[in-house]
């Protein structure tokens, strides 16, 4: 399952979609809207995607993960639009025969997703200001340049 949607994510259904009698392990990752970033309080997040390219890159990620691990089923779903505190922005679920395979594949998928899939996040802070979260465009010293997606 590869999907970009404006609807709330049903993590239970997404996790169930990867279960299999051939799997001994399922690993699910949920990204959720966190209220505090250091001392700053978030009011909500806005996610924007380039949907055609995002879906293509997500399918490439799944294919590459399947080359690296014996994945039985995988699901990558990202929500776009305005999300409230605690809501789920992304669900990645993977099933494999054994546990380390499922956990490693899930970790690689979320890490690589965040490097290459064109989805952007805007912080709407509780003080009313807004800020796109663009690694490499943020204040100097905040870290790497985000310019070299590995895929």
């Amino acid at each position, binding site marked *: 399952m590869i999907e970009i949607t404006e609807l709330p994510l049903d993590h239970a259904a997404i996790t169930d979609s990867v279960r299999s009698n051939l799997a001994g392990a399922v690993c699910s990752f949920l990204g959720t809207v966190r209220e505090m970033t250091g001392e700053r309080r978030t009011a909500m997040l806005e996610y924007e995607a*380039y949907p055609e390219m995002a879906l293509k890159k997500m399918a490439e990620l799944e294919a590459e993960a399947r080359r690296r691990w014996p994945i039985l089923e995988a699901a990558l779903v990202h929500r776009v639009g305005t999300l409230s505190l605690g809501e789920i922005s992304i669900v990645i679920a993977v099933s494999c025969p054994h546990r380390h395979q499922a956990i490693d594949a899930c970790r690689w998928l979320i890490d690589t997703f965040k490097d*290459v899939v064109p989805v*952007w996040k805007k912080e709407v802070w509780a003080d009313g200001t807004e800020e*796109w*979260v*663009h690694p*490499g465009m943020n204040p100097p010293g905040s870290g790497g340049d985000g310019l070299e997606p590995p895929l």
Partner: protein
Amino acid sequence: MLAIVRLFAIARERAGRAVIEVELADGANVGDLKAALACEVPSLALLLPTIRIAVNSDYADDNSPIPPGADLAAIPPVSGGCEPGIRR
């Protein structure tokens, strides 16, 4: 040829529009497109060093050719997911 470029996120907001059309010489590459964008939309000039151009939904470097009719997009550094400021 006419290049139609979609803009996203901070690039869209700085430019004040979601699509830019620029005229390029036939045989132009991605570097040429970025130079044209900087002239056409000065508010994007400072962002362009961090923006990648996608050609037909794949990341392209400055030497990549631009086929006529290609889907083009300006891709600011991505941040899908859930956690700012870590690991980068």
